[in-house]
């Protein structure tokens, strides 16, 4: 039923329909509304026999999830930002053990400086952990992806992270068609674990593996990710057949048919970019958008196909690798077709800085004029940066640079 719902509520209601058996929760903005809603449903007895556990840290949240999943329970948790980093050892462990935990990541920046707003630094930090990472463009897709996530996770024995932009999606109220329980039940069979802690059939899980077998064990995990490249689109198609909704899959191409310039991006910013592309199309420009829906495994072939006609590729991404540049852009470069389009990276939206349609049109204009550098930072106030560099050059004890910049910005008005 189509309803006007907060994104977090839509995700909570959808996770509930997936019949989780153990849910762990440690609160962190902007994930809180999701776990609050699920906690209330468990308290009401609506999800019985589901266990809801308020843990003492994110590290415990993922650790409890590991134990519950290894004991054969369908397990869910959610986190963001610092929380993801605090649990990172267990994040790797869940994947290494092949446990199909599903986790919502309400994407948020990572400090210092502390910042509660949206970007993708958290997801990028666990890119190599062995989780499937799916990015939602809208709250409808965020909700739908959770049903597909449990299906994928349990089919492959790989944990799945559903990434949705913190606040921008989690706290946005918009129309979402909540999936019917009967549809979920037909799409998502009961969890049949490959390995389970069972006194009737005892196994040892988590043994030490030395150099004689470690590479093979890790390679098998890599193969499961490659299997996911096959399964993600077929699960999305099956989901579309049931619901009529094109949620998930590997990539979301938009107006690529004859596009010479293609913007590649992930998450909710795709909506703004599509509006900008529509506007430029009306002005006669051949531009398009490629949304990357599955970041891990990275759909090299699908991206390569989608970019095969492009002369210019612009990756707009909400994270970067300090001292290097784009993270998504590096993968896109790897996947770029032999025709070798010009590739530019625009780091944007860091720490919640807005990305507007005007911004995107400006990027396209610079690209068309040939003045878009290989790496740039959207709306970076270079004067503020230069003044802090000057302070640092002038005095050894120039002080904490984040605070200096804040003072500078406050004195000079808005940052844009």
């Amino acid at each position, binding site marked *: 039923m189509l309803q006007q719902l907060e994104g977090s509520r839509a995700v909570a209601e959808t996770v509930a329909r997936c019949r989780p058996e153990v849910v762990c929760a440690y609160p962190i903005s902007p994930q809180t509304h999701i776990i609050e809603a699920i906690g209330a449903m468990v308290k009401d007895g609506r999800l019985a026999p589901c266990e809801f556990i308020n843990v003492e840290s994110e590290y415990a949240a993922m650790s*409890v999830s590991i*134990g519950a*999943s*290894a004991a054969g329970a369908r397990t869910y948790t959610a986190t963001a930002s610092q929380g993801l980093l605090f649990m990172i050892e267990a994040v790797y462990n869940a994947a290494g053990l092949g446990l199909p935990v599903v986790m919502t990541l309400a994407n948020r920046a990572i400090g210092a400086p502390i910042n509660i707003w949206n970007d993708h630094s958290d997801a990028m930090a666990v890119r190599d952990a062995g989780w499937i990472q799916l990015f939602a463009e809208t709250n409808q897709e965020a909700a739908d992806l959770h049903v597909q996530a449990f299906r994928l996770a349990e089919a492959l024995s790989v944990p799945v992270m559903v990434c949705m932009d913190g606040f921008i999606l989690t706290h946005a109220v918009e129309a979402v068609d909540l999936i019917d329980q009967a549809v979920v039940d037909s799409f998502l069979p009961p969890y049949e674990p490959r390995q389970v802690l069972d006194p009737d059939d005892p196994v040892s899980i988590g*043994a030490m593996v030395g150099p004689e077998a470690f590479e093979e064990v890790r390679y098998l995990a890599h193969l499961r990710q490659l299997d996911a490249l096959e399964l993600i689109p077929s699960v999305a198609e099956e989901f579309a057949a049931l619901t009529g909704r094109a949620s998930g899959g590997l990539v979301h191409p938009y107006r690529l048919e004859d596009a010479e310039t293609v913007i590649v991006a992930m998450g909710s910013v795709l909506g703004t970019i599509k509006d900008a592309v529509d506007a430029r199309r009306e002005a006669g420009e051949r531009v398009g958008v490629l949304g990357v829906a599955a970041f891990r495994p990275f759909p090299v072939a699908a991206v390569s196909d989608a970019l095969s006609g492009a002369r210019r590729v612009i990756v707009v991404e909400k994270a970067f690798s300090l001292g290097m540049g784009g993270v998504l852009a590096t993968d896109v470069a790897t996947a770029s077709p032999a025709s070798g389009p010009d590739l530019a990276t625009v780091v944007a939206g860091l720490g919640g800085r807005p990305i507007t349609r005007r911004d995107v049109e400006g990027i396209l204009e610079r690209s068309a004029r040939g003045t878009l550098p290989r790496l740039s930072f959207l709306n970076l106030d270079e004067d503020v940066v230069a003044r802090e560099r000057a302070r640092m050059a002038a005095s050894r004890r120039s002080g904490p640079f984040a605070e200096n910049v804040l003072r500078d910005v406050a004195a000079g008005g808005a940052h844009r």
Partner: protein
Amino acid sequence: MTETRVHFYQVGSFAVGNRLLSDADRTVQASQERTNSLDAGHRACQGCGEALGARYALDAAMRATEGRLVAVNATGCLEVFSTPFPETSWRIAWLHSLFGNAPAVATGVAAAMRAKGRDDVRVVGQAGDGGTVDIGFGALSGMFERNDDVLFICYDNEGYMNTGVQRSAATPPTARTATSEARGPDPGNVFGQGKDLPRIAMAHDIPYVATATVADLHDLERKVERAMTFHGARYLHVLVPCPLGWGAASADTVRLARLAAESGFFPVFEAEHGVVTGVRRIRRRVGVEEYLRPQRRFAHLFAGEGRPDLVARLQALADANVERYGLAPEEE
């Protein structure tokens, strides 16, 4: 023919041996029904106190739960020596995740069993002292305060033995470790630090807390079985001498565990809902020196002129334990 004196107290009880006990009181190890939870063939050192303690504790737990048991293990010696790839010594359902998260993983297993309606399956978490009092402490405290249905067993050998004998928050004062060398005016581990985890556990008001040593395996088994009569969070802290880390003879493991208890240096007691309900009183009190001397980690206390001042301070710690728990021998 020479005469041999029989030291009845060597088995830590008034019995000469298991065979003189009634069937019901015999150790589970005397039964052909035992599980061999931690089976032969593992890679523990000669005289490993942890292997001995874990085998007795888990077989007792298996007996108490009629085989409906899952064990969760922290990283550490026990995990490493029991699962040398591609083998495993565990004959029970067993999961190792990480060093610091065993209590939380155990919580997850217990939650899953409850959700699946398998309330008959009980969960044991186990770790060394590092995984318990240091890196796993937050997770353990969380498991305690939520009163999750887990028996957590700490095998305390008073240091990070798996990584080469470094200091933990369970290392006693003056003990030499690789990160608390026996040098300078305050050799070895310093006074005034460390955590008394059984008392911290009691402060969580959990149903059952007990300490034990591998010198009295009947007592250890009884406490595991007692723990299994409760639901909720339970904690068992077992002193397990480490020949390698303590610099002791492999044959002295049980003797050192007994001397630790008989000197009062390691108090053996049990508590229910935060209140001490029983102590294992000392039978023949010994000074701490008798316990310390056979261990090379304390050798600097006795070399040359020795450090009687430090030995006296250690004796004072033992005396305080005897006082706190009422461990003094009964008047004969």
